[in-house]
């Protein structure tokens, strides 16, 4: 830690928004997953874009790393400052700047949380909603799109990053760049079209090419009612057929699948949660019937059926975001939880399940599988999840080894890592097309010549 840098940061953001206290650095150096911790030297909480520009310029001048931070919930170490430096905690930049109700988009600052936007829309725009991910409400909207997150509307509209409608980005040089229609118009309705789409220079890069200080995301109709049916099957080979039929109805909001051995009620089955919405009872019941009829052939063959979701169970399933993940995370006590959630074809579901069970047995770990269907079943996110007690070193190590095997498996089945760990990023780079790699390197080297932006992520040099 250099006093001169600390003083410069205080000059930029104010004394109470800069910390070098060990106790605070400790928390900024880790997440609840399996990644090894590494503390930053400084933490700063800027209030606006100008302060971020100054911090980036300072870091460039001093040659020290910068790690932009949302809520630090990636679980895969994406915001762990492996080379120390400055963590830029975005949480003070949480203003909701504009809602265009008729054009259905909202502009927010880069540190705005999912929970804040959810509450704001519920209060002021009850007919609008955004694609809420199943992360804690403190997760930020910007960080979620930077990792190509998914949410409650991903089945209908794609990855949450597909729903971006414009960005303001501070480049590694400290300059500001506007992305999308907002670059030429006062309206933030598109991240690219009809212009050249440069949003890909930032989305999926984990903050290694710039810091999003403002962004617009698309909003969608929020119906008055929401319900679900859960289709259960013990024949994993049928999952992709079932999903194909359900998505063909075009009646469905969200589709998730879960499978876990405990409690016994869930053992040996995969549970396809099919969510649908309506403004009236009639609309809701019409959709329910269409969904039932679409799966009738599986019921008649006795291969699957709709389970009874009692009214008392429904609030748990209809919760947004889902809290059940947090409950699973602590099943072994000690609050350790990590999952690898590759994006792959829905037809790979049975292979993924087999691998998950095999690893659970091999490493004696509690497992849970959760999948989310993306964009009318073009692909899915399949989460290989293990819970562990962080105080139990042996269990942590077993979980680490199991995750390493998952990573190899994902490549074998043609999957692509989602929010990959550093090791998974290296695996991706090893397997990526050489022309693609060359282009990625050109982009990274050009945008961040001093390699100060969230280093150790997407290490392409």
């Amino acid at each position, binding site marked *: 830690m250099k006093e001169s840098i600390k003083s410069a940061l205080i000059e930029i953001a104010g004394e109470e928004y800069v910390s070098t206290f060990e106790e605070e650095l400790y928390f900024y150096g880790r997440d609840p997953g399996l990644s090894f911790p590494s503390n930053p030297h400084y933490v700063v909480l800027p209030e606006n874009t100008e302060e971020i520009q100054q911090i980036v310029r300072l870091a460039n001048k001093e040659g020290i790393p910068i790690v932009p931070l949302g809520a630090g919930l990636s679980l895969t170490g994406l915001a762990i400052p492996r080379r120390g430096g400055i963590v830029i905690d975005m949480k003070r930049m949480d203003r909701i700047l504009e809602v265009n109700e008729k054009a259905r988009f909202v502009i927010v600052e880069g540190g705005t949380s999912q929970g804040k936007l959810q509450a704001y829309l519920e209060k002021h725009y009850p007919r609008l909603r955004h694609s809420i991910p199943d992360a804690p409400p403190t997760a930020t909207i910007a960080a979620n799109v930077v990792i190509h997150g998914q949410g409650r509307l991903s089945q209908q509209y794609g990855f949450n990053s597909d729903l971006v409608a414009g960005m303001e980005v501070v480049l590694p040089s400290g300059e500001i760049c506007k992305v999308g229609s907002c670059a030429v118009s006062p309206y933030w309705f598109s991240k690219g079209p009809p212009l050249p789409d440069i949003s890909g220079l930032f989305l999926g890069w984990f903050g290694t090419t710039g810091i999003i200080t403002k962004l617009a995301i698309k909003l969608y109709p929020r119906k008055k009612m929401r319900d679900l049916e859960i289709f259960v099957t013990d024949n994993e080979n049928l999952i992709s057929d079932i999903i194909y039929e359900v998505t063909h109805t075009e009646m469905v909001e969200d589709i998730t699948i879960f499978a876990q051995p405990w409690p016994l009620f869930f053992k040996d*089955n995969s549970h396809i949660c099919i969510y649908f919405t309506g403004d009236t009872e009639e609309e809701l019941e019409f959709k329910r*019937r269409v969904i039932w009829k679409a799966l009738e052939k599986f019921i008649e063959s006795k291969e699957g*059926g709709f389970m009874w979701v009692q009214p008392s169970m429904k609030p748990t399933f209809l919760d947004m975001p889902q809290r059940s993940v947090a409950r699973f995370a602590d099943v072994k006590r000690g609050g350790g939880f990590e999952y690898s959630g590759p994006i792959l074809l829905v037809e790979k579901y049975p292979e993924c399940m087999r691998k998950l069970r095999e690893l659970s047995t091999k490493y004696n770990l509690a497992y849970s599988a959760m999948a989310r269907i993306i964009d009318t079943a073009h692909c899915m996110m399949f989460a290989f999840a293990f819970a562990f007690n962080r105080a139990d070193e042996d269990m942590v190590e077993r979980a680490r080894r199991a995750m390493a095997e998952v990573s190899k498996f994902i490549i074998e089945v043609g999957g692509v890592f989602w929010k990959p760990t550093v090791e998974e990023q290296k695996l991706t780079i090893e397997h990526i097309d050489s022309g693609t790699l060359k282009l990625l390197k050109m982009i990274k080297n050009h945008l961040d010549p001093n390699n100060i932006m969230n280093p150790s992520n997407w290490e392409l040099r």
Partner: protein
Amino acid sequence: MGELRFNENLCLNCTTFDCLKKCKFVKLNGAKGNLEMLKIARGEDSTVLRTCITCYACEEYCEKGNHPFYLISEKREEKGIDIVPRPILKQWINLGEPVGRYKVGELREKTLSFGFVPEFLQWVKGKLFEDVMPSYVFGQEFFCNVAYLHFGRTSVIKQRLPIVMDNFSKLGIKEVICLHDECYGAFTSLAPAFGIEVPFKPIHYYEYILKRLEQLKDKIRPLNIKVAYQRPCSSRLSPPMHYLAREIFTSIGVELVDRVYQDENALCCGEVVRLQGLYDLAEELQRENIEDIVKSGAEYCVFNCPYCYAALGHKLIKKGVKPIHIIELCRMALGEEV
């Protein structure tokens, strides 16, 4: 647990053919139904094995006590005729598997059995149960498993019910007040039909409630309300107990309104039918039940079975009828908040 005591001769000499003639679902008139029942008894295939929706009603319709429904259930399983999708069957069989998470209160020789119905942990309190609580048992270890008749799996009942009986015995329980008809039916109808002795005295909770209401009659504030009553399938295993509901209503100043689907003509709540994957039939049953209740002019619909309550309750609320379990209704009459 042994073989089902089914007497083919009783069917041969039957002149009413009520079991399937009265059935709302199988729809076999007169001697045709009798013929099908005899085919089933002889181990032959029958359309009934595929069309029965497990409403239990034929157990009540057969006045000779010949257990037509138990027979249908046994033969279905013998012939490998699945009535619910395999994953749903697995789910429910797993649900009833004892896992050591049962609860027992301060046990005495007389105890309440909540079976495996968590709602009773909330509902069973107050003056009505003062003389027996906190003597209760709850959990899979005390679950009668009769629900598996709905799934055509008598074998599960045969395997688990003796263990359940044993669990009661080990605790020194001599009298069991059953809060669900299925438990009472298990001990008074199904167990004898399969030749198994019950090592305690089963008491239906309607008998218990009536006795308690008599003891507490000074504290009863007549409710002066009109109620409809939704009879569950499981009460077909002990018809005389069903009729005690009327006495309970009288003793708390409640008027039981007439409805089409009353007493012997009761209509299934539909939820089991939904589990079988028969969406349209389930919808029809629920619609008919709800329309009938609404038409009756009742302010409340009283439930005996918590699962019928869960199936129809929220739909009735939307139609302006308040759902309530009979225990809550009685507690209301005793001036307690429910």
